[in-house]
């Protein structure tokens, strides 16, 4: 899978699944933190995003501390998806 393509699809998914109304996928910074300060997402968003990623990409996000680093940014999440797909 092409990481750039995954990042784009991921950002489209975030806008629709997290109801980021008024935001375009291009508004989301690939390197910015998803939670807290960056996009201002919270734990409920993390659950929704994990569910949507599994639905869309067939990749499970592990729970607990591993999830924290995977959800660090769009880049980190896309990397996880790409490497999980490659390993599959």
């Amino acid at each position, binding site marked *: 899978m092409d990481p750039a393509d995954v990042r784009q699809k991921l950002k489209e998914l975030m806008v629709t*699944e*997290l*109801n*980021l*109304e*008024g*935001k375009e996928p291009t508004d989301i910074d690939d390197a910015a933190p998803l939670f807290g300060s960056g996009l201002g997402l*919270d*734990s*409920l*968003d993390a*659950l*929704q995003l994990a*569910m949507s990623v*599994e*639905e869309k990409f067939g990749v499970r996000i592990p*729970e607990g501390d591993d999830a924290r680093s995977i959800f660090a940014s769009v880049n980190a999440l896309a990397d996880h998806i790409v490497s999980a797909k490659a390993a599959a």
Partner: protein
Amino acid sequence: MRIWVTGIGVVSPLGRGAGVTMDRLLAGDRAFGELSLFNLPEMRTRLAAEVRGLSAAEVAPEGDAEAWSRTDAMSVLAVREALAQAGVAPTRGPIDLIVGGTTAGMYETEDLLAELSRDADAIKPLRAMLTHPLSSTADHVRAAVGPFRRVRSVCSACSSGANALLLAAAWIRAGVSRCVVAGGADGLCRLTYTGFGALSAVDPNPCRPFDKRRAGLNLGEGAAFLVLEPEEASRARGVTRPIAELVGWGVGAEAHHITNPEREGRTAARVMQAALAKARLSPADIDHVNAHGTATPLNDSMEAAAIRACFGPEAERVLVSSVKGQIGHTLGAAGAIEAAVSVMTIARGEVPPTMGLEEVDPACPLAHTTRATKANVRAVMSNSFGFGGTDTSLVFAAPDVFAAPEVPARRSVVVVSAATIGPLGVLGARENDAYLEPGPAPAPGPIHFQASEHLDVGRARRLDRAGRLSAVAIQRALGDANLDPLDPSIGAEVGAILGAAFGSVDGSTAFMRRIYEKGVKFASPADFPNLVPSSPVGHASIYLGLRGPVFAVADLGVTAECAVVTAADLIAVGEGEVLAAGSVEEASPMIERCLGPVCSGEARGVRSEGASAILLEAEEHAKARGIRPLAHLPWWTSWRGAGEGALDGAPEPPKRAAILTGQEDLPPGLCLPEAWAAVPHRAVAPRSGVHEGAGGFAMAAALAAIARGELDAALVVGHAPERGYALLLTAERSPDEPGSS
């Protein structure tokens, strides 16, 4: 005035009956087992605390079980037990009924919703859907045990049962009830089971409240009801001693997050302090806290912080326990079951344990009881917290230990604003008489609604359409009253009571269909909290910063009237200074073609939708703020049945008065008092369209007509099958002012 608890009824996963439930709680029994009610592929856990061997057929009239629910059955059994213990019967004197809950007949109807929705054209009225509305539980208790006089269905998610008891206390203090049976009931269903699973809130093993390794809650089910009476009424019928007294209560909203509690427990502590203040007790008077204690990581640390904040050094002494380690989280029933357990804890002098608690989390440093503990329990505080941050605390005390609480003087209620969003757009306090003017009927179906025209959609992204419609209506009502709920100079927290006749029907349908079509693991965590009936008002509270009492009511086609009357009841006795009240109804093929015809009856006219918010305030509070009200609310009433004689107490109309209704017709069995018989009747339905919330538009129209000097009074009458409400709105004018009669 003392409020006596004279009867308790409980159906719990530990047994049928209050006594057996308490025996087994004290014995440390845990009711968790493999779920037998339903099975969905790929469920991560099958653990639950079920009420075994219970079916709707046990209490339903012969041959009608398909239209009754397990929640009905638990409620009927618990109400019967409570009434029997109290020695009262509905046939011997008027008894009022309040039922808290979240799911009603969801278990019986969730599959039907998913099935029916596959082809919108094939949706048809099905009698089995009678149990879907939240109000169906109260209706069926009334049918099986009644006749009850005043009946309400309330929902504030997991504090519903506690708020039912709080409303009962308000009625008794107001002197309008001499006997109330109030509590909560919730049956297990696929929707809540998969929903809490989606939120990762469920421990696959028996839960561990306040434990360091706690990993979430277990779901349970059950019902509990208490009989509450003013001491004088109870003595008058020969009772000499109650089981306990209900001495204090507090309610408030966090206005923080739809699923996550405030970390520091600020609102929970405020509500607990309010309950103590109401009881005129200090932390030193309380011997036990029956905690909400769900065993979710966030709840338990928040609650521990709140208990420490409220109790200060006394937190080292006050015994704390949670029954959820034994019967799970029974959602809308939890507040009522825990109230019943609190009363029995006082009566038996023995505090139940927190089962599952082995190593206390350092973030939860409290005097936990991990085994049943004998103690002289003078007073117990019972905490309940719900989705949307709806917090309620109740305080029960041993009979005659503390001074009798004083009864505040009954206060006058005024209306300071009103707003609607409907076919004519967003209309404010002085504009809603547009719904009384001749004009075209609305287009059928959804109204035009662009959320971004009214709300900051970035901040409102979690709000579904019902939440957004509610927030817009309340926001406009507040704006027209120049009232900013975040402004501390108001001197009171603004609350809201707002419901929907059928709840989030389309949302629940979509949630269930997704589970069936994609699998349990794709249940949407973000959508689930929006399916609880109090979600729209909870979201509005968070968006607008409403921190007073926040809950939903449901009463079919008179939900808006029910909300306003309930708000007036609360303000009159000092349980709130400013409350927005109304309803939100959404256009939906499932409502139009199935729930509407089955529950509300066939409707004439064009089906539409909309939300209303009527802003009520204590007259003294409005005066102190220098606000001139739109109208006074000197009289209101409600009834069950045909309503014969229900309006006999209505004050006489002034010269320029009208009777206003949502729907086009007046209730067939209702006899207008002679003085009102010749007063013109007008309806808003031709312009607002037909929907279960049309009564809110009638109230808003009445207020605008009064505010603009076109009317001096309006009697707003709302009716639905077997129920109705009426309220009188009068002009605030001195006799020599223009526009007065």
